[in-house]
Structure formats: C-alpha cells, structure tokens
C-alpha cells in the first residue's frame, strides 16, 4: 500500500498535485480546532476589513474574521463530504457485492432498484425535500439523504468487478472449503474492490460537496451552519461584490476550486492506476 502511494507520488504528477491541494485544504480546516472565536458569533471584529497582516483573509460585513470563518466552513464541508461518502460507500459495497456474488434474483431485484436510483433527478429532488423539511434540514439529515442517493453508479461498478471475481479460482476454493458467503464477500472479495471504493469515494465527495454548495448558495439548507455554500450565500445576501468586499467571495471560491481540482486529480490518478488499459496507453506513449 505504501509502496503504491510512493510510486504514485513519484511517477504521477497529477497524484502529487492532488495530494498537495487536498492536504493544504485539510490542514486549513483542521486549524479551526484552534480558533479563538466561535463561528456563529457575529460582530467580533471590525466589519469589511480587506486582507491584512491581522486579518489574513479580511473580515466580512457581519464582523467575522474570514480566516477562522472559512476554516470552520471547510471543516464542516469536508465532514459533510466524508459523511456522505461513508454512507453511500456502505450501501454501494453491500449492494454491489451481494448482487455480484449471489447473482440470480437477488441481483435482479437489487439492480432494479439501482436503475430507479440512477434515473432520479437528484437536485430537483433535494429542492423538494427542502420544500417539505424547511429549516429542519440540517447537515446530518442532508448527508443521510444524499448518502442514500449517491450510491447506484458505484454499486454497479463494484458489482461488475465482483461478478468477475466470482468465477476466479480462489473463490471456488473458498466455497469448497466451506467458507460462508458473507466471509467470502467481505474477507476475500472486499480487498479486490477496495481501490475502486477509494476512487469512487473521492468522486462522490466532489459530487456531494458541489451539491451542498449549490443548495446552500440558493438558500436551501440551514444557513446558520458555516459551510462554503452558506459563506457564499451570506456574501451574496450582503451584496459583497457590489459593495466591494470582493475577498468575501473570491477567497472561498478560490479555495473551493482548489479543493475540487485536488480531489479530481486524485480520482483521475487512482483510476489510471486501477485501469490497466489506460496504464497500457501511457506505456505506449512513452
């Protein structure tokens, strides 16, 4: 595992840049644990101060230090992304391995539901959910809902790998030696799908964080929790661009774009590592 990561950083520039970007943002988010102020407090510092030595990222019109505000925001946003990724991974691994290994009617039933979930228009659906729940829609509820929506593509991918594993020699050996299906699935097959789980988990984070930002900017989440989306919502709400408080918008946008590109580079390089065909293409080009 470590050898793989070392090789990736050494020979795959995308992976190295991705690690760097995501690492910086994570460190920045972790800084919030040492924040001198609570994120919900307003008017703790003079409002509308441009970035300076005292206020690195400036302050906003609500009298908050943007450095600490954004640090909290990224912590919440990252937590949200990880939470959605974990929930949807649990569902997609379970569905994918069950459908792939057991096959038959289990596979058909699971794939039937899979197809329905694939075709759901998620964004309008989330707006309708907000319409019903209103301010009861907190971050954990949203993470739960999105986790339950964000698994079908990845489940299908895991299923196809697991289908291939089912006919491999070692599965037959395990079956004949009396290993239970549950044990085969989670001890023998799971390690094989782990790289896919990892790369799809990151792709899933890109998706869920993007969705959260969009919903929050439109005002469709709980606006009192600082996230990247709600930060932008409040900036728009105070017409930050028109009053000239550009740093309130520019800094979060730059940081979130950096996070997205970093995560994206990680999935791209991991996929290339997983898919032998693209590896071959790279060899051919060399």
């Amino acid at each position, binding site marked *: 595992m470590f050898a793989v990561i070392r*090789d990736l950083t050494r*020979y795959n520039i995308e992976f190295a840049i991705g690690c760097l970007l995501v690492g910086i943002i994570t460190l920045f988010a972790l800084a919030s644990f040492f924040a001198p102020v609570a994120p919900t407090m307003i008017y703790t510092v003079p409002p509308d101060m441009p970035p300076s030595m005292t206020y690195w990222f400036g302050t906003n019109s609500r009298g908050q230090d943007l450095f600490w505000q954004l640090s909290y925001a990224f912590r919440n946003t990252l937590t949200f992304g990880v939470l959605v990724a974990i929930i949807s991974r649990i569902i997609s691994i379970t569905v994918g391995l069950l459908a792939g290994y057991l096959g038959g009617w289990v596979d058909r039933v699971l794939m039937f539901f899979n197809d329905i979930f694939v075709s759901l228009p998620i964004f309008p659906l989330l707006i309708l959910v907000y319409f019903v729940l209103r301010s009861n829609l907190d971050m954990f509820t949203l993470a739960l809902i999105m986790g339950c929506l964000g698994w079908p593509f990845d489940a299908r991918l895991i299923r196809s790998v697991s289908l291939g594993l089912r006919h491999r020699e070692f599965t037959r050996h395990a079956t004949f030696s009396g290993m239970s299906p549950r044990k085969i699935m989670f001890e023998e097959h799971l390690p094989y799908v782990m790289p896919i789980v990892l790369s799809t988990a990151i792709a899933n984070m890109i998706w869920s964080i993007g969705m959260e930002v969009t919903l929050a900017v439109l005002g469709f989440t709980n606006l009192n929790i600082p996230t990247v989306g709600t930060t932008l919502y409040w900036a728009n709400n105070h017409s930050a661009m028109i009053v000239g408080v550009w740093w309130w918008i520019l800094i979060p946008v730059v940081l979130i774009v950096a996070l997205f590109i970093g995560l994206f580079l990680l999935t791209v390089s991991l996929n290339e590592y997983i898919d032998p065909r693209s590896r071959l293409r790279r060899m051919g080009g060399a």
Partner: protein
Amino acid sequence: MADTDDILTVRGLKAYYQMAYFGIEREVRAVDDVTLSIRRNEIYGIAGESSSGKTSLIKVLAAAIRPPLKVVDGSLTYRFGDLEIDPYKARKEEVDAIRWKHLSYIMQGSMSVLNPVRRIKHSFTDFALRPMGVPKNIFWERTKAHLERLNLSPDVLNAYPHELSGGMRQRVTIALATVCQPEFIIADEPTTALDVVVQKDVLAMIRNVQQQMGSSVVFVTHDMSVHANMADRIGIVYAGRLVEEGPTRTLFTAPKHPYTAHLVGSLPRIGDTSAKSALEGRPPNLADPPPGCRFHPRCPLAIEKCKTEVPPLATVGESHRSACWRADDVRPLTTISHRAEAVL
C-alpha cells in the same frame, strides 16, 4: 542471394514491445532475428503455439504494428514489379499507395473487422475504390464479378455486418481483401473462430483466389492440419524465432527440429490410436527468454551446448533450414510419419 523470384525478403528482423511505466522498463522480444523470403505464387504458412510470437511476426510483415511494438533492427523488402519498398523506411503515403493494390491483409477476428454501422458496399468503396483506380460503374462491375467468382451473392453488398453469419463475414472480408487482385495477401488466423465446415469453405476460397490470381499468400495459424492442407512451405516459430522452415511435405515427414516433430506429432489422424504426448511446460516468457536455444528447457534432446549457445538457422536439406544443434538426431514421432504421408 536475393532471388528475383522472391516477392518478400526479410533479413535479421527484430521487433520488440518496448514499455516503460512507473520507472520500470520492459522489453519483450516478440520477433527476434528472423530471416526468410517468400516466393511468387506460393502459400507460406507460419506455425507455432499461442504466444510464440507468430501473430507479432505476421503483423510486422503486414506493416500493421502499433506502439509499443516496434521494429528495432533488420530489413523487410517487398518487390512488386519494378517497385521495391521497405514499409519501415518508406513514407506513409508510399506505404498507403501499395496497400490493397499490391499488398492486402486479412486481419484476425473476422467478427469485428467490418464497420458495424456501415453497409458492406460502403466498406468496399472505402477500401478498394481508390486502389483500383477505375470509375465507379466499372468498380461495381468488377466487385460484383469478383463476388460471384467467390460464390457470394452481390446482395451481401447491401447488408450490414451484423446481418451476416460468422462464416459469411469472413468470406466477405476475404473478398474485400482480394477484390483489387493484390500480388501479396497476408492472412492472420483466417479460420480460427469458425466451425469446421465453414473453415473448409473459407480455406478452399483462399486457395481458389490464390490460384486464380497467382498471388503469394502468407498465413498464420496454430492448427497444423490447416497447414498440411494449405501451405506449400511452412515456417515454424518458437519464442520469437524462426526455428525451422521447409516444404510442407518435408516438415511433416522428416522434421529437423524437435519442436516441429512435436507439433506434427500432435496431429490426430484417422486410424491413429496412439496416445498423444503433450509437450511439457509452456513457451518461455519473451521478456526474459532462456539463454542458448530457447527450446532447451522443454527439449527431450537437449545437451549442455543447447543451454549456452544459440543454434543458427542452418540449411539441412533442399530448401530446408533448421535451428537445432542436434538436427540430425531428430526423428519424427514414428506412429505418424507414414500416416501423414497418406494425407499429404
């Protein structure tokens, strides 16, 4: 030594797969130092096990290779009338100009060589109209005549590939490759995916075309019975090298390489009840071939010398060459020699 009757001369040809990924460089010697020549109006068969390098060899001959497979050394010269050309030294336009007109290729996997969203007739215009160099009405006249000569109905021109059976598709592909009456035809496993009855038809068709046009045909297959039926001469490939070459009858009755003896011995014959002894082991990994004669780890006749020194491809008889230190000690597997005689 260059005979004017040779249409293709290959000298010391080497083609390697060269790969580098994650800092590891690998070199697979798929074609290693091959020298051979093909005469006009002959059928030359290339035989060998899977992963012996025979497919790589024929692709190199057809100038159909793509990276990571590269020609690293040697020469390959075609002689079409006054035109002499080495596809690996000529410009792309020059090579394109000989394709289909002089040199055509029947690729492995007839199931997938035709564009699935185009009718057969469009494939014919795409492939053959320009090389034939005649107006459209004459082109269609000739195409239809050619199809009829090969016992194919001109109706197939209006079909899509998926509407034809596998055997039909292969026959259409052969018709497509031969419609311009090329002097040199290369066929890669032309019968592999077909069932036995269709195989027979397709082989008859290739021979028919060859006889009508007097072209040279080079084909590859692992199926020794096809070689026995088709080829005038056979080249045996093992681990990227040509290990024996000679007239079909000679190779079947008096092989001078233990590997050939085994390939021939594995052929089932009517009335032959002897047990077939399979060759132990597998062809070597071409990224790291054994030293000396590459066959020595599996060879029943191997001596110390075989482990260190590479045997040259030496003349052992009338247009018969073999690369074996003990060529004189090779005996055909007795049960088949007289039976093979009866078949040939």
